[in-house]
């Protein structure tokens, strides 16, 4: 496969994943911000949302108030925010368009029709009523694309590079989300802050659509260390760091099985995978959750760079 094609597919996977994450983050934040303050309805909910997308500084530069309307507009339709849903879809589609040949018709249509719909919208969000359908549109488009890819694409380099991109991005997003709330995620046995924090924890779970999953896995009330355990180490949750690294390693292995070549990216992925396999949540808390997540994000970025280098992007 052409290196440029591989790069475009990989980044398309990443941008679609980012768009989906941002949509889910906004939904969860809306819910949290709507709670009365006596239930922990945090006034800083939108601040956290910005932090989770690493957009705190970019947003501050505009001098806008931190409130639902301007922040959600910034995260969805703002053409000058390179991580806004609009820009993610623009870039994903541009990448898809330049490698149109590597996608199936259905895969392309899923991206293209979402792009057509979002490009019809102006740069201003028309109130809250406009937000929900927009977020749905994005989530559906990403699901439709993944479904189409799953059902119609050749199992080959193109498919694996897309999946590799989305797994790397998903790992990054989950880690950032946890890191923004790390001070709320306390180790087992710590006195927890009661119902106030409960809604913060469930917001995290909702952002990754794992609220119900949590109940099924732990059959327990929401405990902060279990939330961390679920999102970091649980292999059943597709957005957990461990799951993402399962995916990353698997797709890198598939790429290697096709070419017969392994390289630095394979070594880094295996190391990352092993780090998640050889630990438990108590050990992570003991060495510091924030430190763990920061290191994870840095390592994950290094892996991204190693992939680009190894496949000559």
């Amino acid at each position, binding site marked *: *496969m*052409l*290196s*440029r*094609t*591989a790069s475009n597919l990989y980044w398309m996977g990443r941008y679609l994943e980012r768009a989906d994450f941002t949509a889910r983050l906004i939904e969860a934040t809306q819910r949290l911000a709507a709670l009365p303050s006596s239930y922990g309805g945090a006034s800083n909910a939108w601040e956290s949302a910005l932090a989770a997308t690493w957009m705190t500084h970019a947003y501050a530069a505009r001098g806008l108030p931190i409130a639902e309307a301007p922040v959600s507009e910034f995260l969805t339709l703002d053409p000058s925010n390179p991580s806004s849903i609009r820009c993610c879809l623009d870039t994903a589609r*541009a990448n898809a*368009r*330049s*490698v*149109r*040949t590597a996608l199936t*018709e259905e895969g*392309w*249509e899923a991206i*293209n*029709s979402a792009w*057509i719909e979002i490009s019809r919208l102006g740069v201003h969000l028309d109130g809250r009523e406009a937000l929900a359908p927009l977020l749905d549109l994005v989530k559906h488009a990403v699901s439709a694309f993944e479904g189409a890819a799953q059902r119609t694409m050749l199992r080959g*380099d193109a498919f694996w590079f897309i999946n590799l991109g989305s797994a790397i991005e998903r790992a990054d997003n989950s880690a950032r989300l946890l890191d923004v709330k790390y001070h709320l995620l306390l180790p087992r046995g710590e006195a927890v802050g009661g119902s106030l924090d409960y809604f913060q924890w469930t917001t995290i779970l909702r952002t990754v659509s794992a609220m119900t999953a949590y109940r099924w896995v732990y059959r327990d009330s929401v405990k902060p260390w279990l939330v961390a355990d679920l999102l970091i180490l649980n292999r059943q949750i597709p957005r957990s760091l461990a799951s993402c690294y399962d995916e990353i390693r698997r797709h890198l292995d598939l*790429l290697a099985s096709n*070419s017969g*070549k392994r390289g630095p990216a394979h070594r880094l992925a295996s190391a990352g995978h092993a780090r998640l396999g050889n630990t438990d949540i108590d050990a992570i808390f003991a060495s510091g959750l924030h430190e763990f997540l920061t290191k994870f994000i840095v390592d994950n970025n290094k892996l991204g760079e190693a992939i680009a280098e190894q*496949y*000559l992007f």
Partner: protein
Amino acid sequence: MAAITAFDEMFGSAGAYGGPAGPLFTGDPGAAPAPTSITAAYRSIQSWLDNSPPALMAARRRQAELFFRRIGITFAVYGDPDAAERLIPFDIVPRILARAEWQGLEAGLKQRVAALNAFLADVYGPREILRAGIVPEDLVLQNPGFCLHMVGRKPPGGIWTHIAGIDLVRTGPDQFYVLEDNARTPSGVSYMLENREVMLKLVPELFNSLKVAPVETYPEALLEALASVSPRAGGVPVCVLLTPGRHNSAFYEHSFLADKLGIELVEGSDLFVRDDVVYMRTTEGPERVDVIYRRLDDAFIDPLVFNPSSMLGVPGLMAAYAAGNVTLANAVGTGVADDKAIYSYMPDIVRFYTGEEPILQNVPTWRCREPEALGYVLDHLAELVVKEVDGSGGYGMLIGPHAPQATLAAFAAKLKAQPEKFIAQPTLALSTCPTATDAGIAPRHVDLRPFVLTGTNGTHIVPGGLTRVAMTPGSLVVNSSQGGGTKDTWVVDE
């Protein structure tokens, strides 16, 4: 604007649309004219139109547009930021050619493209046609399309124009003319293929009543033609399609064709040359390339030889080409054959190389470089079409009968300043076809671009081609860059 009386391919004359033509048009079924031999093939179309209420036609048109938009088949119009990705209007009424008509055209096209290839081999080789005085030497050697780097070269297989698009117009039951030859990088074939796919989905019932020759073999024929000219013997040749990138107006077509051919769609930066061999950069390292179907103009393909500021090309490509390690399709320098000044010599060129009378007619052409012709053109400007000899896409063209007085005067001045840059032709009454418009079915002017493939395995033409239609009432300009649309073209057994 002077009205042009044109031959209508369904009714014989456009007057029928407003007159006693059929129930769709007047509500009087008894008044339909007896079909002539041409309209016979159109009978199914007419009854289909008659039996389609306006609401159904409107729904079909919306469906077609939706289909095109979803598959992303778009065309950029340069200089129009709002239309960075515009749909080319698609008309759902097919254009019909009877098989017998097509066979005549096919023979003429093969003859013409054989002559074009022979002409190119000759002007870059022995130059016999120049020595014989058939075509003036300066017209060839000083032609902007003449490429000095190709002098004395012989592309693999001796083929220069592997993919040619010959624009035909019709003016009467048996009168077809070649309007121009496109020997460089003709585009539009993706529309020919997609239009058929849309029609099959939209009106399957019509295909039951008419036996329509399929066009879907085009990608295979193209791949075979490309593979046949590989410079490396043995093995499966590696073919690629070289595109200027996704900002090019025809990018959709490039990606579409690469997909259908199952070959890589490469940009200049994906290729590199080492020791006069072309490679593409892949995730598994360099891979050798044998044949490049390039959709990039000569001027941009190699910054070391041509336009040094080109970021789109491949440094060293011409050296690899000269060393015979890679085939470019079409060859470099073919522009000298589709120049509009050379066009006027085509009948002589066909006779010179084939020893036969040309099957396809040329439109009578005044070469403004000749003083006598220039005088005539200036005197009759309001009746003529004037074109730049090296122009394309309908840009910079004057249609005398449709031009206001001021434009005529301005053009006359341009002509006097640089007469050698222009040719003039009579304003042809391009045939019309029934076309679905917002106001119902109406006649619109059409042309036809068949695509002629040439490899060492022979010449291949998919039946039909791309019908372009001027969507504006009375307009004769069918170019997509000027608002033209397309129709599916059916070669039908009778």
